[in-house]
């Protein structure tokens, strides 16, 4: 048994903000304080370990709701960018294997750097079902953290077919079957209908036009998926990457999407890329539209978003939104990858360098920051950089500093493009996040949105994933959050004094198993065998791919 003494606990889920308490850990879980007799017994047997955390900030382990850390797309990104890794080598140390870092780190280094930052649960944001085996193989080489993946379903042939046939039962069964056979956690929807249209050589704008050979509009796809997701009781909402992402004036599409889905649970991801306005009378034609988007988010009770905050410097954009990557390649002239994943989705990768002297990049940066500050309820907005699209996850401590310290933020703005204030109103925002709000946006909120009841808090019964930071007195906020004093994963210490314990430990793979009628596999067999390059019998991920699995129950009730 382990006792963490005198900790200053920041646990928003249990309404604790700087409360001095002890934490007891047994068998990978946080437990209630044992009886006097038991403590005496433990002490006699000398199996009670105590760590004094006087004056240290204690939070649950971080939870990242959206990050690209494993799978074919990430791996292609690594292959595409040898220059990304050349200057960032991580040598072998004790039992920790070597690797390379930077914007697309190797799988081991991804695990190390998340752990070093105090994050213990990460959701891989987009996995094509066909390549699920690859994702699980990489998960097995991703140490320390718990992880799961969201399976792409917004442009899947069978999904579109069942929706266009109005066969809702089959759609539900198919989605549940897809989650089951791929070992996924929840559903991801990327530019619904838009990628399919792009694969057919068309371009679709907005969510109401019908464009594909299925004669479906994005709104019909979104509604059907949101409804199916709620009825299946999957713990996480549908995870939506909106249509028209990244284009000037797309806030209208975003708001239409939010209004369309107001009766369902929905999580809109990297909303920074979906909150741009358009000005006609000016060369830049690009402006933030955070007022409109934040107002809509503040109005809706069920909605959650993550930001996808832009970070200046190198980044590697990678998404299932093939058309977006085509546009980025044309815009930047950088090297690129674009893939058609058979019946399921598209995909693309383009390296980017976000520059402070580039006004458009400055506006994108300000859009993310403004959304953080304008969305009133921190339980609705989560900290992400859409790693590695808008920047690497290692920038989280810096973003926390920008949110907590308005003086630093204003200093930083003063180095921006001279016309910065004409396009943004970040300079007028004075809100500062406090530690409890930081705990919400970086762990409790994402855990709640993902439906992970044992994560993101320090109450009795929670997983013993705990991060201990130095207090903020006379210290740089970014330093404190970048280098936690201790990190505990499943009750075992993995980071001590900002260094990893040189012992590998594997985390769990998080999955859901919604109920379905197994007949669906037979119903789609004929078409599957006709159009896929692999057989349906080889499609599913077999049990030998799974090392340590936690099945999260599908008990959401609308």
């Amino acid at each position, binding site marked *: 048994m382990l006792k963490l003494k005198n900790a200053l606990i920041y646990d928003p889920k249990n309404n604790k903000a700087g409360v001095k308490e002890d934490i007891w850990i047994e068998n990978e879980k946080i437990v209630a304080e044992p009886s006097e007799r038991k403590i005496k017994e433990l002490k006699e047997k000398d199996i009670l370990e105590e760590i004094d955390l006087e004056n240290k900030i204690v939070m649950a382990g971080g939870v990242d709701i959206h990050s690209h850390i494993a799978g074919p797309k990430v791996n292609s990104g690594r292959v595409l960018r040898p*220059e990304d890794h050349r200057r960032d080598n991580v040598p072998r140390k004790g039992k920790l294997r070597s690797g390379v870092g930077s914007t697309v780190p190797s799988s081991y280094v991804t695990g190390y750097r998340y752990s070093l930052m105090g994050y213990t649960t990460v959701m891989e944001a987009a996995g094509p079902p066909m390549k699920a085996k690859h994702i699980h193989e990489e998960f097995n080489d991703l140490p320390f953290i718990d992880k799961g993946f969201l399976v792409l379903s917004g442009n899947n042939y069978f999904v579109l077919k069942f929706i266009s046939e109005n066969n809702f039962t089959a759609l539900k069964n198919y989605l549940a079957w897809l989650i089951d056979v791929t070992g996924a956690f929840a559903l991801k929807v990327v530019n619904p209908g838009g990628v399919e249209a792009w694969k057919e050589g068309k371009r679709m704008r907005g969510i109401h036009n019908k464009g594909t050979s299925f004669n479906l509009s994005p709104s019909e796809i979104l509604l059907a998926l949101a409804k199916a997701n709620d009825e299946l009781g999957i713990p996480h909402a549908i995870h939506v990457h909106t249509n028209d992402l990244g284009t000037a004036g797309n806030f209208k599409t975003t708001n239409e999407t939010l209004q369309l889905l107001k009766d369902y649970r929905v999580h809109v991801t990297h909303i920074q890329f979906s909150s741009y306005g358009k000005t006609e009378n000016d060369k830049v034609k690009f402006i933030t539209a955070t007022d409109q988007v934040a107002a809509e988010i503040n109005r809706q009770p069920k909605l959650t978003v993550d930001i996808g905050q832009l970070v200046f410097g190198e980044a590697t954009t990678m998404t299932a939104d093939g058309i977006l990557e085509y546009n980025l390649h044309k815009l930047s002239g950088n090297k690129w990858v674009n893939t058609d994943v058979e019946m399921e989705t598209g995909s693309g990768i383009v390296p980017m360098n976000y520059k402070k002297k580039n006004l458009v990049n400055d506006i994108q940066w300000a859009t993310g920051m403004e959304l953080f500050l304008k969305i009133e309820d921190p339980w609705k907005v989560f900290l992400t950089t859409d790693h590695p699209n808008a920047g690497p996850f290692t920038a989280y401590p810096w973003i926390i500093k920008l949110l907590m310290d308005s003086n630093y933020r204003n200093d930083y703005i003063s180095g921006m493009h001279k016309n910065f204030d004409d396009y943004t109103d970040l300079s007028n925002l004075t809100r500062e996040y406090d530690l409890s709000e930081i705990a919400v946006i970086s762990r409790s909120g994402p855990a709640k949105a993902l439906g992970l009841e044992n994560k993101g808090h320090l109450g009795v019964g929670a997983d013993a994933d705990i991060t201990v930071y130095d207090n903020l007195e006379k210290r740089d906020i970014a330093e404190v959050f970048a280098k936690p004093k201790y990190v505990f994963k499943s009750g075992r210490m993995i980071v001590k004094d900002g260094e990893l314990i040189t012992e590998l430990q594997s985390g769990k793979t998080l999955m859901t198993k919604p109920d379905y009628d197994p007949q669906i596999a037979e119903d789609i067999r004929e078409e599957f065998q006709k159009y896929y390059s692999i057989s349906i019998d080889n499609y599913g991920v077999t049990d030998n791919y799974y090392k340590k699995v936690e099945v999260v129950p599908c008990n959401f009730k609308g």
Partner: protein
Amino acid sequence: MSKLELTLKRENPALIKKANKIIGKVPVEAQNIKPSLLKDLNISEIGEIELLSGKESYLLKDFFEIEGSPSEEIIINGDLSNFKYLGAAMETGSITVNGNLGMHAASEMKAGYLEVNGNVGDWLGAEMTGGFIKINGHAGNYVGAAFRGDTLGMNRGVIYIKGNAGNFVANKMRRGEIIIEGDCGELLAAQMIAGSVYVFGSCKNRVGAGMKRGTIITLNEVEMLPTFNYNISYFPDFLNIAYNHLKKDYGIEVPPQAYKRRYKRYTGDNTELGKGEILIWENV
């Protein structure tokens, strides 16, 4: 002025031996032999500098006899063909190698002077941003190039090769000058962004493939790619100025027939920006 002289020991840890015969050499990473680092140390500290060979770590004194006094001027004697990264990222001073030298010599060099009285391996002066490199023998592939995946190669600085050079010389070069007295391999200045390359010998195929801007000057006939346009045959005055500059500033002997002669001018590569130029000396 004082000099530091390092002489490679006949017996050193990088040698692979079988029955007392040397059958190979383990590569040594020698980026720590750097004037800016060595000049402030005393002789015994210099001997303690780390050199990596294979997966082992050794000291400089395991490889070299150290003579002279600590200085910005380093002379290294011996066959260093298995030594990589010598002079990499050097900022000041000079290194003279009497013997062959391996890969990545003076890569990412910022300033200073490297002279090799022998041949060098691949990636000489790759991604360098300043300084002067003089090779009295031959050079390998990728002279002044960009490393894999990077967008910019050599960016300022001068590389002067008295012998021949391999393929992909000046690949993705951004600025600076490369002068090759001998011949040069295929794909000279491929994907060049800007800068100048002089080849006084002959070049193999695909000169300037995918070049955006920049100038290639050669004194021999070249097989042109179809994506280059022939412009004009003329007497470019600026070349005489450029040749005088090479002679005056770097002491480079330009063949006398190159001066005040007629050159054919081609521009391309039209698959890219098409602002690159290739000047070919006309033997008339």
